């Protein structure tokens, strides 16, 4: 027990974030590329987990806010030449506004009806981005979203030798770390505790005078906000925004990351993002049957480790302790 407490006191999140800053120093552009992908998807997955793990709300349409954020940031930066420092927060805000609008209806439903409605709204977002040729570029999307101007970063010691994509990576890690820190504050706040209470028993929470719907809606908006920021970053990283960003497979991808990593812990979904991206990367270079591998992985996971990878590791630590005490 003592060992666990000592382990828990280490600021793991901060350590990982600082360590992540040194990835470009290894010198391989490929590592930086993969690490950027992981950092962004980690934020996306953790934002979903606010609903899934903390609020007990299964959203099948989280990609909608990711897509809205990506389009907002991409259009602002590419078409209107708005600087990144304005475009990214605007992307997050717009995603939050849409989350408020859609969430207003979604939280009126529960369980599978809630899930279906989130999916329905996401499909609407996808259909609009697919059809609205003059704004979103339609099916062809919007390629060549510019990198933010990060020449300022070159002044930071140690960063001078980095490439544009490395600078963007450093920025991404910083932003993702900040967003995760905020999200962690949110789940540990009284609001976060209430959210967990609602998950455990919505009726009883209602009886003690808590406005369940309002709390759920607020969680929905916060999750949408951070998904929008992740989307904005991803559009730049991906060098273009496409309707696929809001399509349902994206929603299921992030759902899988969250479940794979473990929705019972704050960083679980981030670990899930890490594992899923690396596995996808490696397996698709050998076979085109990635969905088959993923299916087997999920079945194994759901039956053997319902707590995800982090849940399983936690179990391992507990067992080791018991062995040591015995």
């Amino acid at each position, binding site marked *: 027990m003592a060992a666990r407490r000592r382990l828990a006191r280490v600021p793991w999140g901060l350590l990982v974030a600082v360590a992540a800053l040194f990835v470009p120093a290894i010198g391989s552009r490929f590592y930086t590329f993969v690490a950027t992908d992981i950092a962004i998807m980690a934020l996306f997955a953790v934002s979903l987990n606010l609903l899934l793990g903390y609020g007990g709300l299964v959203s099948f349409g989280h990609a909608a806010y990711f897509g809205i954020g990506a389009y907002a940031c991409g259009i602002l930066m590419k078409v209107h030449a708005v600087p990144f420092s304005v475009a990214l927060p605007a992307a997050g805000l717009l995603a939050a506004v849409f989350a408020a609008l859609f969430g207003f209806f979604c939280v009126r439903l529960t369980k599978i009806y809630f899930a279906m409605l989130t999916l329905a709204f996401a499909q609407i977002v996808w259909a609009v981005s697919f059809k609205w040729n003059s704004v979103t570029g339609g099916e062809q999307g919007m390629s060549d979203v510019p990198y933010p101007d990060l020449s300022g970063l070159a002044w930071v010691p140690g960063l001078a030798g980095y490439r544009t994509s490395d600078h963007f990576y450093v920025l991404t890690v910083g932003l993702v770390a900040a967003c995760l820190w905020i999200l962690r504050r949110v789940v540990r706040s009284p609001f976060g505790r209430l959210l967990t209470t609602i998950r455990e028993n919505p009726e009883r929470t209602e009886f003690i005078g808590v406005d369940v719907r309002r709390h759920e809606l607020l969680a929905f908006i916060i999750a949408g906000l951070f998904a929008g920021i992740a989307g904005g970053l991803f559009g730049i990283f991906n*060098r273009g925004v*496409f309707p696929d960003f809001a399509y349902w497979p994206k929603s299921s991808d992030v759902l899988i990351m969250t479940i794979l990593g473990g929705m019972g812990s704050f960083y679980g979904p981030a670990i899930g993002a890490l594992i899923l991206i*690396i*596995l996808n990367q490696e397996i698709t270079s050998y076979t085109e049957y990635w969905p088959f591998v993923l299916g087997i992985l999920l079945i194994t996971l759901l039956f053997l480790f319902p707590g995800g*990878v982090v849940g399983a590791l936690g179990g391992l630590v507990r067992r080791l302790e018991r062995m040591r005490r015995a």
Partner: protein
Amino acid sequence: MLRRSLLVTLTAALALLLPSYARGEKIKVGFPIILSGGGALFGEPAMKGAQMYVEEINAAGGVLGRPIELIVRDTKGNADEAVRVARELILKDNVDFLVGTVTSAEGPAVSVVAKENKIVFIAPIPKTDQLTAPEKLHPYVFRVAANTTVEGRSAAEVVAKWNVKQIATIGPDYAYGQDVTRAFVSWIKKLKPGVEIVDQEWPKLGEADYTPFINAMMGKKPDAVFSCLWGGFFVTFAKQAKPLGLFEAVKLNVIAVGEAGSPETAKTMGSDYPFGIWGNSYDAFYWHPSPAHRDYAERLSKYLKDPYPSSWAIQGYTGMQFLVEAIKKAGSTDSEKVAKALLGLTIDTPIGRQTLREKDHQADRGQLYGKMTLDPAIGFAVMKPPTYIDPSRFMD
């Protein structure tokens, strides 16, 4: 149980730490293409065509004395997956060149990656004009496919010879359908100012029920129809239009682009094909313009073990052929030099002489057009006769 979860994590971590670094003697060509889902119908044969060419070149000693290695990756038909795969090919597999992509979303998306990494990218299938439009053009992108302007105008050239006045169009409601239809309409009006477009139908991409569109169209009493429903969508459309009597109503004055005249589509439909209409195709095994093409068709037939080999293979084949000829001409695998060598390069392909135009990096690629007639010997429709429409006079 617990050990296994550790194993997964460890394998994942190890997998990241052990990428292949070795940059051997081989010339590596990344080939991102759709290999799953509906688009695989075009992606797979294009990839096979490229593979056949590579095997032939390697058997003959390679290029600059070095063998070529084709690294194929599935793009799943998603633009963002295509971008991911293309960057992975460049950053992890260290490919020297990229050839590939199918859809009009994938092509321009991968073009951005090619530009940023200064890697030559040859697109064998995407048709969107945007790929090589002036504002998107950069030194490293090239296309050996026909573009939407060429396809629409070629169809107009055919229809201009018909004795028709009132034309209806039908096409999927997204970039490709709109662009081809626009190119057709503006060109036919230029060629035959008396022509009137009486109706335009825009079913959504992937529509399964064309009946309301067909009825609306027939209500306008056109005497000719232009369709750019491609692949399986044309099959569905034609099967639904037949019992409604659309083809008789316009006296078979129908031109179906989007490769509706390809041997693959004709074979799929068999005797259900609306014989008598006009279709187009990139290639046809029964087309014999030269001994070189006859030889190519025979080699392909053997390679694919198919008596009626695919018409899409030629796109992968000519894409790779252009690349290899440019490497030879440049005497180097440096992308910058190869890109320069590709400008204005003319080569002899199985379908005849092709040139990559210097001004817009676009090959003067036309397509085959012909009246679809049942060939009793093989049991499906063929273009009779298949006529190659050379676009060089109306590309600009």
